């Protein structure tokens, strides 16, 4: 598994169904069950936004869930990555002409990885998560890097006084 070699810790996933038809949702769950079993990589589906590193959203945004999606995203601690699963989460898909659909998830929160498909296959979802892991790792390094710079600047300032 050379593609997962950078995986230093176990990312936890939060799944939210924005306005999906369920097809992608059950495929997200299928990733966790014995055939695909992403838990062997330490990936767990958590229900708690405060525990999650990766937010997986299926389905497009509508007027009522707009605030819910934003709320969940804001509750997640940094660093965090958003994966939009399925074509509805990317653009609204087959539902884009419906009166209640605003569009893809990126109308409300920033999206890092788009997984295409209607419904997205478990293999593609796992591939999307692997891509998300690389972004997560990059952000984590940037954050720890920034924290270290801050720390060393503080120490330097402490020495000079």
């Amino acid at each position, binding site marked *: 598994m050379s593609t997962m070699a950078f995986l230093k810790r176990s990312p936890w996933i939060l*799944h*939210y*169904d*924005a*306005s*999906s*038809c*369920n*097809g*992608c*949702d*059950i*495929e*997200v*769950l*299928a990733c966790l*069950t*014995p*055939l695909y079993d992403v838990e062997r990589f330490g990936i767990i589906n*958590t*229900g*708690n*936004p405060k525990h999650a590193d990766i937010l997986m959203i299926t*389905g*497009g945004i*509508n007027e*009522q*869930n707009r605030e*819910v999606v934003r709320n*969940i995203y804001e509750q997640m601690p940094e660093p965090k990555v958003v994966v939009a699963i399925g074509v509805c989460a990317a653009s609204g898909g*087959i*539902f884009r*002409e*419906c*009166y*209640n*659909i605003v569009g893809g998830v990126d109308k409300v929160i920033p999206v890092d990885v788009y997984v295409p498909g*209607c*419904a997205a*296959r478990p293999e593609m979802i796992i591939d999307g998560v692997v891509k998300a892991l690389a972004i997560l790792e990059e952000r984590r390094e940037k954050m720890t890097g920034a924290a270290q710079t801050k720390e060393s600047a503080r120490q330097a300032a402490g020495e000079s006084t």
Partner: protein
Amino acid sequence: MPERIVVPFGPQHPVLPEPIHLDLVLEDETVVDVVPSIGYIHRGLEQLVQKREFTEYVYVAERICGICSFMHALCYSQGIEHIMGIEVPDRAKYLRTIWSECSRLHSHLLWLGLFADGMGFENLFMRSWQLRESVLDTLEDTTGGRVIQGTCKVGGVRRDIGQEKLDEMHRALDPFEEECRDLGDIFLNDDTVKYRLQGLSVISKDDAYALGAVGPTARASGVPVDHRETGYAAYGDLGFKPVVETAGDCYARCAVRVKEIYASIDLIRRAIDQIPEGALDVKVKGTPDGEYFSRVEQPRGEVVHYLRGNGTKHLARARIRTPTLANIPPLVKMLPGAQLADVPVVVLSIDPCISCTER
């Protein structure tokens, strides 16, 4: 009298993959009242009939729900066929039956898994979903799609299943049934499962009937309604008896679904035995003019598609009443008296499909 508090449940909640919001009114740990609110995944699919041609709308109908997708397409197609007076070839009817029952198998196995997860029985969850993958493999082999099949169309079906594949499916049914019976044995006879479910949130036959419960929720309370008895598709030829339980508790709702898995396997076996040779579809000429209430038995209960055509290629109106919507009033009746910790199990016991409900 203990103080009443309101606990919000959802829309994002660990046990439900889909968003539904319930305001639970509690006295200590006991639920005394429930106020459901829905609309988090309302899309407005019904109005889309005015933008899609009636033959194209099958794909939209299929995406009302990703679990019972084939049956939504079937219900819509049967409605249009009835309005236009199209007689579907027999082979297409049998293929529709086989795919419908495969969908029911994967839906019930999915639900059993989620239900086990709701009870905290993780091992059983994984085992149900492992079994479900073999049904999805068959669906993918025969239609090309795991959860969205796209094979049903107005006038028939889009694909055939070759005799070789049918024989293979038939051979695979026996070992599959054995595994399902092993799994069902745990749900029906395990002491921890019984302890958790028996006597929980009982709904009487009269209440279930009066509140308009459908599907396994109604049949678990002793209301013998199953729309497959009316003999749409090939069910008329195959003969069919609904699975009925009388206790009306969560255990009975679980038992109905477990036994329906066995019934579905039997239906598929007989459909493969009896499938006739012949054409797959008939040519659709003209446009629908008239109205019809089309009804199909989904895994969760009876779905109703009301379709009205006005002689143009776009329908004037579609109205879709899905089983979960009909089962929410019974759910509101069931919950009071339950402990807060049992709420996820009781909510799951009606097999809520929110994307169906809100369309």
